[in-house]
């Protein structure tokens, strides 16, 4: 699609809306705005605007709509699929200044926030007040707007669900500049099509989120983790469905291999509590009393031992949890630091096929002679598989990467899985979304996109 190229007149108009300090052009555009965390693709927008409120967002969108200028919304740029890269240039609309926490409604158990509020700020704010926002993606410096736009998941999905399950209401600006409110501080809602659920996970292609009402829970008082060593990854992952079957649902079930733990130790410069086994499961249980949580975890500990665990290590204090979870939180960065470049497959499969999929990554690793590292949410079937470039020349890596992705996504599909568990489609995974879902499905997505954004100015080139 052809878009208008930004002129000085357009810049002046944006300045009149957002103020001089909040419109960045030329050298004032920091390198961060040219990319997200997806490797290998960079594009500077012509202008970055930093609106301070919904009215300014609406004015910017209205003007861009009239002038046919592309707009790419951006939170903190921590995405992994290029969804926040201005591939058609034009305007980048960053919500970073709109970061207020507006209201904690204790009667309705909701929190009203602006999209730029960071995930870590939200958890700190609510937990101080004995409330709990369960979605727990690894990247705590992400913005809530970005989390909603990708339907971010995280580690507690096994018990609590994902971002979608904790959004009560959204306020968003449509490409035309009109303001839309969907949902509310309501628990039930059967009032027609759920536009709220359509906006969640739409990666900034349908509207710009300007406010969200999140659902909270009371904060569980006790959390205990179990670090369970296994002789090999296969035995570890085969234990997961058995744990789930035991009906004691942990908040998180993560799997990790020794080589990833060693990378994290190198990266953080501190030791993990145990690195003597080849594979581990990390389980967390929460509840309101130590006795209750101990009873639950003891039953699961027996299940693990019966399923071939070498032991079950108990992490029941802040210091112990910190020593484990700080390493777990650094896995992605640690793997990144261990190689020259990498790309990722964020596939999700039914939980009982996790072991089959992980075994298959070993097949791909051998067949293509490329190093593959993986870790992830064994409890919800969402795996993070990283294909590492190491010393490979660019062209060889590109070829192997494509082949590896083809093989992995095909396997994911064969096992009844989907392209992305929590990172989204963005720019990087479009081809695989289309391949896995077929023309009818993609046409429906394109139709929805056209209804929201008839002239295609909002985050063009993403998702469908």
């Amino acid at each position: 699609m052809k878009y208008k190229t930004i002129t000085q007149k357009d810049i002046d108009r944006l300045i009149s809306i957002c103020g001089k300090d909040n419109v960045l052009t030329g050298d004032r555009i920091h390198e961060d705005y040219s990319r997200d965390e997806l490797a290998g693709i960079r594009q500077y927008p012509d202008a970055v605007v930093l609106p301070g409120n919904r009215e300014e967002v609406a004015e910017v969108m209205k003007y861009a709509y009239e002038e046919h200028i592309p707009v790419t919304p951006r939170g903190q740029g921590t995405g992994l699929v290029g969804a926040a890269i201005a591939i058609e240039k034009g305007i980048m609309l960053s919500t970073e200044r709109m970061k207020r926490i507006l209201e904690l409604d204790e009667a309705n158990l909701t929190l009203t926030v602006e999209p730029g509020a960071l995930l870590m700020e939200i958890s700190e704010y609510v937990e101080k007040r004995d409330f709990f926002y369960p979605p727990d993606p690894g990247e705590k410096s992400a913005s809530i707007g970005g989390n909603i736009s990708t339907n971010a998941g995280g580690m507690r999905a096994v018990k609590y669900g994902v971002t979608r399950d904790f959004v009560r209401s959204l306020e968003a600006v449509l490409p035309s500049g009109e303001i839309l409110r969907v949902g509310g501080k309501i628990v039930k809602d059967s009032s027609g099509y759920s536009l709220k659920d359509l906006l969640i996970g739409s990666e900034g292609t349908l509207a710009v989120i300007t406010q969200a009402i999140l659902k909270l829970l009371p904060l569980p008082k006790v959390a205990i983790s179990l670090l369970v060593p296994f002789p090999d990854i296969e035995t570890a992952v085969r234990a997961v469905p058995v744990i789930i079957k035991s009906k004691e649902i942990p908040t998180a079930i993560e799997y990790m291999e020794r080589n990833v733990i060693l990378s994290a130790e190198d990266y953080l410069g501190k030791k993990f509590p145990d690195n003597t086994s080849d594979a581990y499961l990390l389980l967390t249980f929460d509840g309101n009393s130590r006795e209750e949580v101990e009873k639950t975890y003891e039953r699961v500990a027996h299940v693990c031992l019966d399923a071939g665990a070498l032991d079950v290590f108990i992490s029941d204090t802040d210091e112990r949890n910190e020593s484990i979870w700080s390493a777990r939180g650094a896995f992605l960065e640690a793997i990144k630091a261990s190689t020259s470049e990498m790309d990722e497959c964020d596939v999700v499969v039914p939980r009982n096929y996790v072991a089959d999929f992980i075994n298959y990554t070993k097949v791909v690793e051998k067949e293509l002679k490329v190093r593959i590292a993986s870790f992830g949410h064994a409890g919800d079937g969402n795996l993070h598989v990283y294909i590492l470039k190491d010393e490979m020349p660019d062209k060889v890596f590109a070829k192997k990467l494509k082949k590896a992705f083809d093989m992995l996504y095909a396997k994911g599909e064969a096992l009844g899985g989907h392209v992305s568990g929590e990172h989204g489609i963005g720019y990087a995974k479009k081809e695989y979304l289309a391949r896995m879902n077929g023309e009818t499905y993609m046409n429906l997505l394109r139709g929805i996109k056209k209804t929201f954004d008839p002239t295609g100015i909002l985050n063009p080139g993403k998702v469908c």
Partner: protein
Amino acid sequence: MQITVCIKQVPGTSEVDIDEKTGVLKREGIDSKMNPYDLYAIETALRLKAEQGAKVNVLTMGPPQAEAVIREAYMMGADKGFLMTDKKFAGADVLATAYALSQGIRTLGDSDLLICGKMTTDGDTAQVGPEIAEYLQIPHVANVRRIHEINEKAIVVEMNMAESVEIQEVQLPCLITVEKDIYPPRLPSFKLKLKTAGRPVKNVTFKDLKDRNEMHYGLNGSPTQVLRIFPPEPNKTNEHWEGSGEALSKRLAEKLHELKFI
């Protein structure tokens, strides 16, 4: 070789409220845990056990529920646990605690090495370890951050003196207090929990001690008294700066100079 580790049960969180009138910690409803520094002491003992084939005792003084930290030490791999519990020990200050522990240690037979954590998170004095050694009239080294070697007669350790490191060879028996991170402490094992569930914890009471002068223990034996405990004023002053990265870094460097941090 016999190694004895002194451990303590402390409040499970650092956010304990203090009753400002009585100066007493409000412990009701607060979870307790092993003093985090003691985990390093136990880990050090267990590493030496693996290398030297030692037996590891753990000793704690506290109310009956302090047995929990002994059970936890069993789950890490300690062999025998001793709980000094007696009303006569209650209300002890640093000196009286060290004295009672030194008396308790004498009942365990000859230990070649005593290991304590550097300090506790509820008392923060770091004095009990060295005072135990003084009462036992054995040498001690505080703030040990590395063990170079150990044999039947002596141990060579690295002592952290903040601005310098001192390497000392000390004759056994001796006492060391170990720094955080001397070794990463292992997590308690569920298998050992099952295995040690029936293992007894030996109670050591006033009657078991050699010195049975009540005036040497608890409140009676404490030359110091706590006049007042109060939460420190949290420092909430902050400055908010905005500007380009270059300008901000320059300003930050100036500020750090001004505050004499650099």
